[in-house]
């Protein structure tokens, strides 16, 4: 399984955000997207997530992971992606468990049980606390737990570690490593070194685009 982006461009409000972007990411690899504020990192991730229409180009997932469901190829690309945006996609009035149970039920392929996922993000005791009562960092960790309760091979992460302390950052890097070892693909816009092997990096720059492989 590998993700291929060919000649991707995005135009918003008449302005070209990026153009002619092509890259390929294999199973078990991560792409770290960096660039100054406003360079189009979020736009790129939203285009890949299918939330914005690209001006040109396309994104596709070739091949099938082992043990994939029979209708794997019939799904749209974005159905293979978990997207962690700036917002946490959780309801403050519902408890942590209710929120996670909802997202788990909405997806076809459940992965970890909710207590297990909470254990993985280091917040096992908070299942019954309303999401609105949590601190910024805790909220972020719960929304990271959302990525774990159902299985989707591609993770699109937009500033995933915003609001996290250094310990939680390390923990999150560990979760990403596990996902890559399971044959996943990660695209992350972040400035924090995540200490991952098998990474490519993409430097977004409004004038020029540099794509280098480490």
């Amino acid at each position, binding site marked *: 399984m590998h993700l291929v982006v060919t000649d991707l461009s995005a135009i918003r409000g008449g302005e070209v955000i990026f153009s002619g972007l092509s890259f390929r990411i294999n199973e078990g690899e991560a792409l770290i997207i960096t660039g100054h504020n406003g360079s189009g990192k979020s736009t790129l991730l939203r285009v890949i997530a299918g939330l914005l229409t690209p001006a040109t180009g396309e994104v596709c997932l070739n091949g099938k992971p082992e043990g994939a469901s029979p209708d794997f190829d019939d799904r749209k690309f974005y159905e293979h992606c978990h997207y962690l*945006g700036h*917002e946490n996609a959780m309801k403050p009035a519902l408890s942590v468990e209710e929120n996670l149970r909802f997202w788990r039920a909405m997806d076809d392929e459940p992965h970890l049980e909710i207590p297990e996922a909470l254990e993985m993000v280091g917040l096992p005791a908070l299942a019954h606390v309303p999401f609105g009562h949590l601190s910024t960092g805790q909220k972020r960790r719960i929304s990271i737990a959302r990525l774990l309760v159902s299985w989707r091979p591609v993770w699109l992460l937009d500033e995933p570690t915003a609001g996290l302390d250094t310990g939680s950052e390390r923990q999150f890097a560990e979760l990403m490593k596990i996902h890559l070892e399971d044959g996943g693909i990660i695209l992350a816009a972040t400035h924090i070194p995540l200490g991952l092997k098998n990474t490519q990096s993409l430097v977004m720059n409004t004038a020029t685009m540099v794509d280098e492989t480490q």
Partner: protein
Amino acid sequence: MIALFLRDVRLSWRAGGGALTGVMFFLAVVMVVPFGVGPDLNLLARIGPAMLWLGALLASLLGLDRLFQADREDGSLDILLMNGTPMAAIVFIKCAAHWVTTGLPLVIAAPLFGLFMNMPPLAIAATMATLVAGTPAITFVGAVGAAVTVALPRGGLLLAILVLPWTIPVLIFGVSAAYGAVEDPAPFTEPFIVLVAISLFFAVIGSLGAGAVLRHSDH
């Protein structure tokens, strides 16, 4: 899908959900009518079905602006859009949950408010039946308005203006069916069937329309 329905129902009963806002507004409208038109009991009984329908229509419009806006603000809408389920189905479920938590309480409160208007039992029953059949149409038309105004910070008023013209047929057939039940030459069945048809029609068109608008709203 059941999970989405249950989540929305649960949310509307939790803090900030506003499940009872509509009923309180409905009560306010019906309560001030007798003060406005005077204590003529026959007149109140005559205009009762129309007043209940007006109250229910305006109350239904109240919470509609939050139908998708709340999900958009906290990022849930993005995740729902990335779900395999067609957006029209998601809109349909959200509308169903919205109607159960805001439309159904109006129907249940209608008999009590009918008493305020000195309506005979048959007229109350007929008004309840027309509200059950007609208020879903308001929710589904409103869904399109809610989808169009989802990105606007004060979209509520615009939504009401956009949606109100489309609800006029619902109001006309709802009130005429309710009158048909009590006033002899006027028919009940025919306008009632048209009312049901309008609801079914908008359930399809509204879900598809709002789904398409939401899918392309950021583009």
